[in-house]
C-alpha cells in the first residue's frame, strides 16, 4: 500500500491510514451504524485490527484512506484491485467508503470522497471498470451509487454494480460543479 498518496478535492482530503488511526478505525468499524452495512458484523479486536493493517500495508492491491473534512476525520475509504497485479495495472477496482460522523452521513458531502476516488481510478489509473457489491437491503447505498452512474449487473442478497467512465462523467457533472465551488474563508484563515 502506498503511504504517501494524498487525494484532495471537492472539499475533502483522503490521506493514507497510519498506525495512529487504527483504534479510531476499529471504533468506527465496530459501531452498529457502520457494521450493519458490512458483510460481517463480527466485533474486531485490537489484535485483528493490527494484523489487518500489517497485511494491507504490504499489499500492492489495496489502498486505505481516512476521509477528512475541515481537518476533521469523518470516515474511511479504500480501493481494492479486482483484476490486475497492482493498482497501476488494474483494469477493475472496487472502491468502498463509509462516513462515520452522523452530521455528514445524510449530506451532499458524502459524494465528495467517491468523486475523488473515481476520478483517481478513471483519470490517473486508467481503470476500465469500477465494481462494488452492496447488500440488497442497503437502499441508501444503492441509490447513492446510482447517482454516481453505477448500473446493476447482478441482483441477489448482494447486488453487484458496475461503473464505467462515460456513465460516471455524465452522472457526476452537476455534483462536481456544486462541490468544486470556492468556499468563503474568514480573513484570518490560513490556507
Amino acid at each position, binding site marked *: 500500500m502506498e503511504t504517501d498518496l494524498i487525494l484532495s478535492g471537492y*472539499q475533502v482530503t483522503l490521506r493514507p491510514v497510519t498506525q495512529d488511526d487504527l483504534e479510531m478505525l476499529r471504533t468506527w468499524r465496530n459501531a452498529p451504524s457502520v457494521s450493519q452495512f458490512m458483510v460481517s458484523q463480527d466485533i474486531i479486536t485490537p489484535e485483528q485490527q493490527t494484523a489487518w493493517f500489517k497485511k494491507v500495508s504490504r499489499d500492492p492491491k489495496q489502498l486505505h484512506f481516512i476521509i477528512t473534512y475541515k481537518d476533521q476525520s469523518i470516515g474511511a475509504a479504500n480501493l481494492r484491485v479486482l483484476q490486475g497485479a497492482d493498482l497501476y495495472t488494474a483494469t477493475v477496482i472496487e472502491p468502498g467508503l463509509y462516513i462515520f460522523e452522523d452530521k455528514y452521513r*445524510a*449530506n*451532499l*458531502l458524502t*459524494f465528495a470522497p467517491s468523486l475523488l476516488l473515481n476520478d483517481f481510478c478513471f483519470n490517473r489509473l486508467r481503470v476500465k471498470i469500477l465494481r462494488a457489491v452492496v447488500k440488497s437491503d442497503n437502499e*441508501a447505498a444503492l*441509490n*447513492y451509487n446510482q*447517482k454516481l452512474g453505477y448500473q446493476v449487473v447482478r441482483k441477489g442478497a448482494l447486488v453487484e454494480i458496475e461503473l464505467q467512465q462515460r456513465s460516471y462523467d455524465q452522472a457526476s457533472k*452537476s*455534483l462536481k460543479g*456544486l*462541490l*468544486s*465551488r*470556492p*468556499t*468563503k474563508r474568514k480573513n484570518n484563515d490560513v490556507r
Partner: protein
Amino acid sequence: MMSANLEKLMTAFATALNVDIQIVQDDLAYNTIPQWDSTAHMALIAELEDIFDIMLDTDDIIDMSSVAKAKEIIQKYGVSL
C-alpha cells in the same frame, strides 16, 4: 403572516423536491424523504439561486441540510425572510 421571501423559499423547496408545500417545515431534512435526494438538492440550489439572485458557496451548499438551515443560510446572503 408569511413574508414574500419566505413564501418564495417554501415554494422553491416544494418545486425542487416535487412535494406539497405543506410538508416544507423547518425540520424537513436532506435524505429523510425519498424526494430530497442529491438530485433534488442540486435542483433546490439552482432554484434558490435563481429566485434570490445569489450564488451559494460550497460550504453553504453542504450545510443546507434542512429547511431551518436553509432559512439561516439564505439570510446570510442579505435576503430578509
